[in-house]
C-alpha cells in the first residue's frame, strides 16, 4: 500500500532571499515527511528556523531551493486559493480583535469557500458549529474574543483552522503562552483530530515531554542538520542529545525522555526506605545534589539489618559492611534516621533530612 504522504520536503533550503545575490540560508538539504493521520512535532532550539520552515511549508515565503510536495503535488503549483483548501495555519502571535465574537472569528476560516461578500450559507454555518464544538467551546459562540481566556482564545484559533476544512493543519507553537492544563487541552484536541479525522497536524513546540509522548513523528532541527523519525528512535539513537550540545547545565535522560538539569553530585547517600517515601526521598536527594543508592544497591543488603531490625538505636556500624565515612538514611515510619561519621541522629521529616544533608555537605566542603 502506498503511504499517504501529505507533506514531503525534498532537499529543501529555506531562508530569506536578499536583494543582492546572497541569500540568508536558514537551513538546507531538508528531507522530511508527514503522513495522513499523523501528529508531527517540530522541535528545535530558539532561532534554529522552526518558524521559517513552517512559514515556507504554509506558502508564506518561497523555498530557496528544493521542493515541497503537498499531496504529491509541488506546493508551488497550487494557487493561494487552492492551497487554502489543503492547509490551514495557526500562528504563534496572539490575535487581538476584542470586538470579534468567537463564532465570527471561526467564521473567518470559511474565507476560501464564501462568495465575494463573505456571506455564510448553511454549510458554512454547520462547519463553524462543528469546529467550535470540537474544540469544546460550545456555548461561547457569542462571547467576544477579547473577553475569553488565553487558552479559550487559542482553542478558538484552532477552531478557525478547522472551519477552513483542510487535511493539513500547521501550527506554530500553539501552546506557547498557555499553562499546563490549557496546554494539554490543546494537544489533546489536536491528537483527537489526527486520530479520528485523519488530519495531518504539524506543530512546533518547545515542550519536549509532550512532543515525545504524543507525536507520531518528530522533526528535530539541529544546528547542522535535521533529523526525522518516531520519538523512540530519536531518543535511543542519541539525536535528541544533540539538541543542546554545548549546554553544560543540561543532560538528556533517555529513560525519562526529557532534558534534565545537570547537577554536580556532591556525595552519595545510601537510602533505605519503601513505597511513597522512597520515591519522594530519591527525588529530594537528587534535587539537592546527592547520588542516591537505594537498599538494593548496597552490597550485601546490609542496611536491611541496620537499626530497624533491632529497633534499638544502635550504631549501624555494628553491622558488617558499614563504613563510617558513608552517609546512610533509613526510613522508620514517618521518621528518618541519619547516620554518618559515627554520628546517628533521628529526624522527623524529609524536609529536615534535606536540611541536615546540606549541612553535612557544607561541613565537608569547608
Amino acid at each position, binding site marked *: 500500500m502506498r503511504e499517504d504522504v501529505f507533506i514531503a520536503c525534498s532537499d529543501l533550503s529555506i531562508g530569506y532571499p536578499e536583494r543582492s545575490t546572497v541569500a540568508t540560508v536558514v537551513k538546507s538539504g531538508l528531507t522530511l515527511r508527514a503522513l495522513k493521520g499523523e501528529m508531527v512535532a517540530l522541535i528545535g532550539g530558539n532561532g534554529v528556523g522552526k518558524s521559517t520552515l513552517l512559514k515556507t511549508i*504554509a506558502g508564506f515565503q518561497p523555498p530557496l531551493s528544493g521542493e515541497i510536495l503537498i499531496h504529491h503535488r509541488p506546493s508551488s503549483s497550487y494557487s493561494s486559493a487552492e492551497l487554502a483548501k489543503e492547509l490551514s495555519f495557526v*500562528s504563534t502571535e496572539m*490575535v487581538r480583535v476584542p*470586538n*470579534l465574537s468567537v463564532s*465570527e472569528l471561526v467564521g*473567518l476560516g470559511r*474565507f476560501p469557500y464564501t462568495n465575494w461578500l463573505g*456571506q455564510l450559507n448553511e454549510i458554512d454555518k454547520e462547519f463553524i458549529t462543528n469546529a467550535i464544538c470540537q474544540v469544546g467551546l460550545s456555548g461561547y459562540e457569542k462571547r467576544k474574543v477579547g473577553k475569553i481566556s488565553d487558552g479559550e482564545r487559542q482553542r478558538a484559533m484552532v477552531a478557525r483552522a478547522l472551519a477552513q476544512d483542510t487535511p493539513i493543519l500547521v501550527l506554530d507553537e500553539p501552546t506557547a503562552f498557555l499553562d499546563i492544563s490549557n496546554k494539554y487541552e490543546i494537544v489533546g484536541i489536536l491528537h483527537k483530530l489526527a486520530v479520528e479525522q485523519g488530519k495531518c497536524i504539524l506543530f512546533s513546540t518547545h515542550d519536549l515531554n509532550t512532543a515525545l509522548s504524543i507525536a507520531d513523528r518528530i522533526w528535530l532541527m539541529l544546528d547542522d542538520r535535521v533529523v526525522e523519525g518516531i520519538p523512540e528512535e530519536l531518543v535511543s539513537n542519541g539525536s535528541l542529545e544533540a539538541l543542546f550540545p554545548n549546554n553544560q547545565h543540561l543532560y538528556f535522560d533517555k529513560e525519562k525522555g526529557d532534558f534534565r538539569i545537570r547537577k554536580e553530585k556532591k556525595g552519595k547517600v545510601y537510602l533505605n526506605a519503601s513505597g511513597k517515601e522512597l520515591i519522594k526521598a530519591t527525588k529530594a536527594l537528587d534535587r539537592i545534589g546527592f547520588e542516591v543508592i537505594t537498599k538494593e544497591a548496597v552490597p550485601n543488603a546490609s542496611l536491611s539489618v541496620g537499626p530497624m531490625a533491632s529497633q534499638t538505636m544502635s550504631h549501624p556500624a555494628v553491622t558488617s559492611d558499614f563504613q563510617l565515612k558513608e552517609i546512610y538514611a533509613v526510613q522508620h515510619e514517618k521518621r528518618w534516621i541519619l547516620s554518618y561519621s559515627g554520628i546517628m541522629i533521628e529526624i522527623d521529616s524529609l524536609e529536615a533530612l534535606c536540611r541536615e544533608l546540606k549541612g553535612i555537605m557544607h561541613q565537608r566542603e569547608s
Partner: protein
Amino acid sequence: MKSKKRDALGLILLTVVLALFFVLDLLSGSVAISLSQSISTLFHPSSADPSIASILFQFRIPKALTALFAGAALSVAGLQMQTIFRNPIAGPDILGISSGASLGVALFVLSAGWIFKGSLLFSVAGSWGIVLAAWLGAGCMMLLIILLASRLRDLMTVLILGILISSAILAFVSVLQYFSSESSLKSFIVWTMGSLGSTTRDQLWVLIPSVLAGLLVAMLSAKFLDAFLLGENYARSMGMNLRLAYLLTFASTSVLAGSITAFCGPIGFVGIIVPHLARKFFHTSLHGRLIPVTMLLGGVVMLVGDLVSQLPGYETTLPINSVTSMLGIPIVIWIIVQNKKLGSL
C-alpha cells in the same frame, strides 16, 4: 437571528438621526430660516423668496451634502487604514495622505501666485486648481505608500515611514510658505483650516461620484478587510490575493481621503474616531456590517461638527479642521487610554 434584527434597527435609527442633523444643518446659519420656509422653498422653488432660495440652494444644501459625504468618506478611509495597518490610531492624516495633498496645494497656490501675480486667470482656475493639486498630491503620496508596502513586508514600518514622510513634507511646505507672498500664503492657510462651505454645486458633481465610487470599492473589499483583522499571514493562509486586496483598499482610501482633502482641505481626526465609535456601538469588527455603520455615523459626526463650527448665535464660522481636532483629540486620548491592554479593531 437576533443580532441581525438589532443591527437593522440600529441602522434605521442611525439613518433617522442622520436625516435629523441634515435638516438641522440646513436650518442653522447666520440667516435664520424656519422649517416651514425651507420646506416650501424646497418643494416650490419658483414661488419662494429668491434670497432664501439662493441661500438654501447655493450654500446650505451643498454644504450639508459636503459634510455628509466628507464624514462618510473620511471615516470609511480611516476604518480601512486601521484594519490594514492593524493600528487603532491609523487614519488618513497619519499615513501622510493629507500632507501629500497639502504639498500639492502649497506648490500650486504658492507657485501659481508667483507666476500669475493675481491675474484674472488665477482666480478662475484657482478653485479647481487647488482641487487638482490636492488630488495629485494625495495620489502621489498613496502611490509612494503602496510602493513602500509592496517592498517592505512589515506594515508597521510603512506606517512609521508614512509619519516620517509626512513630517518631511510639512517641513518642506513651511519652507515654501516662508518664501511666498502674503496673499498666496493667506489662501494656503485658509485651505489648511478646512472648509465644508467652499464646495460649489459644480464641484459636488465631482465630489459625490468619487466618494460613492470609493465607498463601493470599500464595500467590495469587506471580505478582504475581515481577513486582514487576523494579520497578513492569516489572510494569506486563507487564500487571499494580497496584491488585489492592497490595491483595492489603497485605491479606495486614496480616492476617499484624497477627494475630501482636495475639496475641503485637511479635516483631522474624523477618520480615526468614527470607526471606533461604530465598533463600540455595534459590537462588531466584521466589515460587511461595520462599513455601512461607519458611513452613516461619519455623516452624523461631520454634520455635528459643522453645526458646532457655526457657533449658534454668532455671525462667524470656525474653521472645521480646528473644530474636529478640538472635539476629536479628547476622544482619541480616551481610545488610547482604553486600549492600554488590548488593541481594538
